[in-house]
C-alpha cells in the first residue's frame, strides 16, 4: 500500500503535462508512464460502424474520462477492452507497455490488471457485503480447497479493514439490498480496487486500471463527492481510472484528461484544465449545432405556433396537469398537457424521465409507485400516490411502455386479442363472446394502423417489432385516450414503422386533440415531434424548451449541462 501523504491526487501534478493529447499516438507503446494505449480500434456491427479508428492513451495514476452521448460508442469500447466484443482487424491494445492479444480472450483483461465496474455494479443483492467482496476468490476456488472451512470471523475483520481503507463505513454482515445505492456503488468500486491492489501485490507490477462505466448515473451531488473521494483513494494507491460518462460536470471535477467519442469516432480530447465546458459540449454534440434544426417545425406550428387556425385555438384546453409528482427517481415534477399538444421529457438515465410515465399511470413493476403529487385529468383531480392503472385508464390515460415484451403486449395472444384486450366487454353480450365481430373489427384496425401481415388471428410474437409496436398503439387507441404516455415508442423498431408510428401519434393529436407525453432518448425525434420539451435532472425539471427553440442541439446541450445535479 502506498503511503503518499495527504493528496489522493487525481492528477494536478506538474509531471503529467507531457502526454496531454490523447489523440496522438506519437509516443511509442513503451512510452514510460502509459498504462493503457489503444490504437486504431474499429468495430462494425452489420452495416453500422460503432467505432472508427479510436485511439487514446491513459497515464499512470490519472483519471481519464471517455465522454460521449448515448450511442456514441462508449459501451462498445468498454466491451472490447473487457473481451466481450472483437474489434475489427487492425486494432492494437497495449497495457503496461506490452501488447495484448487482439481480440482479448474473455477474462484476460482481469489477469493483466484491468478491473471493470459497470452500471449494474455486478453485486448480488441477497448476499452480504463480505460475501460480495469475496465473490471473486470463492468462485475461483477449486477441488479440495472448496471444502476447507472459511474463517468468517477473521474475514469479517479483514473486510472491515479493507472497507475502512477505502473510506467506507459498512457492516460486512449487512446484505447488499439493505444498502443505499451510493454505498452499493462505492462497495462495487472498492471491491474492484481491492482486486487491483491484490493484483499489484501478487505480480509486483505497478500499473493497473480501473474502468468505471457510467458510475454517476444514479448519484446526487453530495453522493458524487463520496464517489470522487473513493476514486482519489484508488489513484493514490497507484491505479489509474478510466471514467466513462456522459456527465460533463463529474468529468470536469475528477478527470485529468479526456477523450470525446461522437458517432464512434474520436471527436476531441485533451487536458480538462485546458478545455472549457463549452468546448467540451461542442465536441460531444458536434460543432455544427445549427445543422440539427427541427425538420417538422411547420406541422407543429399548425397546433401551437402563430399559424394556428382560430377554430383550433378555441378547442385548446388543458387535458393533464401534474403538480409536484414524486416517486422513484422523480423528485418534483410538474407539467401541463393541452389538447393536441406533445410534451417531450428528456434527460439521462436516473434523471426521472424513465419513471415519470409509469408514475402518472399508477406505478409500474420497476418504477415504484408515486409518493406524492397530484394529477388532474380533464378537470378531475387524483392523488398520484393512490392512483392505480385501472383508474388512470378510466380517466383517459394510456401508456405505451418501453419494455414491450414484458409490459406492453402479450406475445402469445393473437393480434386481435392484443388490440381489444382493454375493451373485451364490448364484444361480450348475452353470455357469449362475439369473436367473429371482433375479428372483423380487428381486420379493420390492421388496415387502419397498417399492421402487417393483416392477420388478426396470428400470435403477436410472429410479427416484427415495428408491427408489434403498432399493435400496442392500436390497443391503446381503442380506449380513446385523452392523453397518451409514450416511453421510447420507436425504440427497436425499423425505420418504416418508426415513421408510421410518429405519423399515427401526430394524426391523433391533430384530429382528436389527444395530448401526448413523449419520453425518449432520441433527441432528434423529440425535436421533431414535440411542442415543448422538459429537460429533467435529478427528478426535477431544469429546463423548459418550447416553440422554435425545440431543436436537437438545444435538448442535447440542456441535458449535458444539467446532468444529475441537486
Amino acid at each position, binding site marked *: 500500500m502506498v503511503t503518499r501523504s495527504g493528496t489522493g491526487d487525481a492528477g494536478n501534478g506538474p509531471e503529467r503535462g507531457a502526454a496531454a493529447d490523447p489523440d496522438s499516438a506519437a509516443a511509442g507503446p513503451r512510452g514510460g508512464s502509459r498504462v493503457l494505449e489503444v490504437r486504431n480500434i474499429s468495430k462494425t456491427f452489420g452495416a453500422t460502424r460503432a467505432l472508427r479508428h479510436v485511439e487514446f492513451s491513459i497515464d499512470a495514476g490519472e483519471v481519464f474520462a471517455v465522454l460521449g452521448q448515448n450511442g456514441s460508442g462508449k459501451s462498445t469500447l468498454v466491451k472490447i477492452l473487457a473481451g466481450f466484443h472483437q474489434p475489427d482487424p487492425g486494432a492494437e491494445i497495449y497495457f503496461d507497455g506490452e501488447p495484448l492479444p487482439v481480440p482479448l480472450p474473455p477474462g484476460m483483461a482481469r489477469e493483466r490488471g484491468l478491473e471493470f465496474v459497470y452500471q449494474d455494479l455486478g453485486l448480488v443483492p441477497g448476499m452480504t457485503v463480505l460475501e460480495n467482496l469475496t465473490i471473486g476468490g470463492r468462485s475461483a476456488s477449486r477441488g479440495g480447497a472448496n471444502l476447507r472451512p472459511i474463517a468468517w470471523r477473521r474475514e469479517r475483520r479483514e473486510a472491515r479493514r479493507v472497507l475502512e481503507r477505502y*473510506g467506507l463505513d459498512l457492516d460486512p*454482515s449487512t446484505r447488499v439490498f439493505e444498502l443505499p445505492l451510493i454505498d452499493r456503488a462505492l462497495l462495487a468500486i472498492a471491491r474492484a480496487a481491492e482486486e487491483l491492489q491484490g493484483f499489484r501485490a501478487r505480480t509486483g507490477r505497478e500499473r493497473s486500471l480501473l474502468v468505471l462505466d457510467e458510475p454517476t448515473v444514479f448519484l446526487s451531488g453530495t453522493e458524487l463527492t463520496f464517489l470522487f473521494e473513493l476514486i482519489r483513494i484508488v489513484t*493514490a494507491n497507484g491505479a489509474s481510472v478510466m471514467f466513462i460518462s456522459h456527465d460533463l460536470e463529474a468529468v470536469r*471535477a475528477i478527470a485529468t484528461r479526456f477523450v470525446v467519442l461522437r458517432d464512434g469516432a474520436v471527436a476531441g480530447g485533451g487536458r480538462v484544465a485546458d478545455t472549457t465546458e463549452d468546448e467540451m459540449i461542442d465536441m460531444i454534440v458536434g460543432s455544427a449545432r445549427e445543422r440539427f434544426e427541427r425538420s417538422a417545425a411547420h406541422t407543429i406550428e399548425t397546433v401551437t405556433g402563430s399559424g394556428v387556425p382560430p377554430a383550433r385555438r378555441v378547442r385548446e384546453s388543458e387535458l393533464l396537469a401534474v403538480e409536484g409528482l414524486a416517486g422513484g427517481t422523480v423528485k418534483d415534477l410538474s407539467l401541463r398537457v393541452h389538447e393536441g399538444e406533445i410534451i417531450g421529457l428528456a434527460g439521462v438515465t436516473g434523471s426521472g424521465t424513465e419513471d415519470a410515465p409509469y408514475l402518472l399511470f399508477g406505478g409500474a413493476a420497476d418504477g415504484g409507485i408515486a409518493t406524492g403529487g397530484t394529477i388532474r385529468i380533464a378537470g378531475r383531480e387524483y392523488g398520484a400516490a393512490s392512483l392505480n392503472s385501472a383508474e388512470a385508464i378510466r380517466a383517459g390515460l394510456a401508456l405505451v411502455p418501453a419494455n414491450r415484451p414484458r409490459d406492453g403486449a402479450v406475445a402469445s395472444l393473437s393480434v386481435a386479442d392484443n388490440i381489444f384486450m382493454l375493451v373485451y366487454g364490448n364484444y361480450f353480450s348475452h353470455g357469449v363472446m362475439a369473436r367473429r365481430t371482433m375479428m372483423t373489427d380487428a381486420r379493420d384496425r390492421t388496415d387502419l394502423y397498417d399492421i402487417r401481415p393483416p392477420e388478426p388471428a396470428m400470435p403477436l410474437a410472429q410479427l416484427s417489432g415495428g408491427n408489434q409496436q403498432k399493435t400496442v398503439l392500436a390497443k391503446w387507441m381503442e380506449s380513446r385516450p385523452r392523453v397518451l404516455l409514450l416511453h421510447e415508442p420507436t425504440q427497436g423498431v425499423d425505420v418504416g414503422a418508426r415513421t408510421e408510428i410518429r405519423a399515427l401519434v401526430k394524426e391523433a393529436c391533430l384530429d382528436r386533440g389527444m395530448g401526448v407525453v413523449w419520453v425518449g432518448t432520441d433527441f432528434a425525434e423529440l425535436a421533431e415531434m414535440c411542442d415543448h420539451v422538459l429537460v429533467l435532472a435529478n427528478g426535477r425539471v431544469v429546463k423548459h424548451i418550447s416553440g422554435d427553440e425545440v431543436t436537437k442541439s438545444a435538448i442535447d446541450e440542456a441535458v449535458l449541462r444539467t446532468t444529475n445535479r441537486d
Partner: protein
Amino acid sequence: MTGPWRRQAQPPDLAEPARDTSAGPGMLTLEGIAPRRHQESRRGVQVGRRIEAWALVVMWILLVIAFTLDEPGLFMTIGNWANILGSQAVLLMLALASLIPLVMRDFDLSLGAITTLSAMTLAILNVEDHMNIVEACLIAVVVSVCVSAVNALLTVRFGGDPFVITLGMLTVLTGIIYLISGSATVGVVSPAFSRVIFIDTFAGIPIEFYIGLLVMVVVWYILAMTPAGQQAVIVGESREVAKLSGVRVARARTIGYLAAGLIAGLGGVVYAATTGSVDPTTGGTALLLPAVAAVFLGSTCITPGRFNAPGSAIAVYFLASGAAGLENLGAEDYVQQLFYGAALIVAVILPKMLGPGRGVNFTLL
C-alpha cells in the same frame, strides 16, 4: 486507521480549485459533508437481526413450555421426547435433501418418491431376494443417486424446467414403486437392521435421530462454511454474477441434485428400518411437502432470508413438537395439518412485511 484515506484527513483543496459554485451548493468540495450515518444505527440493526435469527427457536421454547404447563407429566417426558426427536429423522433428511437444490433455486419434487423408491428397493432386495442388508442399503442409495442424475441431466443439461421435470419424475417413480412391489407392502426387513437404527438408543433417543443430526451438520458445514457452499449461494442468488465470476454453474447444480438424491436415498434406508415393511402407497408428495414446508420455515431463522440446514432442522422439530403437543391434547389429525400449513404461511409472510427484499427470494431460475 490513520493515513491518507481518512475522510477527515483530506485537505479541502483536493477538489478542483476555483470551481464555479453556482452549479450546486458546495458540491465539489469536501467541506460540509455530513458524516456518514451508519455507526449510530448499527447496534440497533444488529440486535434486530439477532432477534429475527432466533425468533423461531424462542417460539419453539415457548411452545414447549406451554405444552409442559398444560399437560405436566405427559409432554416433558423422556418417552415423549424420544418420540418427537426420533420419529422425525426421515423428514429431517428429506428436508435437508430438498434444501440443497433450493439453495441454488432448483426444486426437486421427486425427492419424496426417491426416498420411497430407496426404501422399497432395500426391502425387496433384502426380503424377497434375501440379499445381505448392507449390500441392499448400498444398492438402494446408488439407485437414488442414479434417479437424481437423470433429473440433473434433464434440467441442467437439457434446460428442462425443474418443477415440470421433477413432477414428471415423481409420477414415473410412483409407478415404478407399484410395479416392483406388485402394489403390495414388502416386509419385514432384517430385524437386526431395524434394531440398530430404530430400536437402539443413545441417551434415550433412537439412533436415527443422530443419523439425521449428522447429515444436518455435514450439510450445514458445506453450505455455510466452505467456498463450495458460497458458490452454491451465488448460483442461487444471481446466476448471472455466478457465471461472470467463473463459478461452474452447471457443475454446481448437478452436484446439488446428486447430493439431494444421496440424502433422500439415505432417508429411504432409515425409513425402511423404522417401518420394517415398506408400503408402496406412502411416500411421494405425502413425505415431501412437510419437508419442503420445514425448509421454507427454516429460512426465516439462523440466517434469515437464506435456506439453511440448522434452520430446517429447527423447523422440523418445532413442527413435530407442536403436532405432538396437540396430539397429547387429544386434537384430531387434521389439527396437525392446520398447524403445519399456518406456521409455514405465517413464517414466510412475516419477513416480507418487515420490509422489501426481506425473506427468501424464491424464484425458480
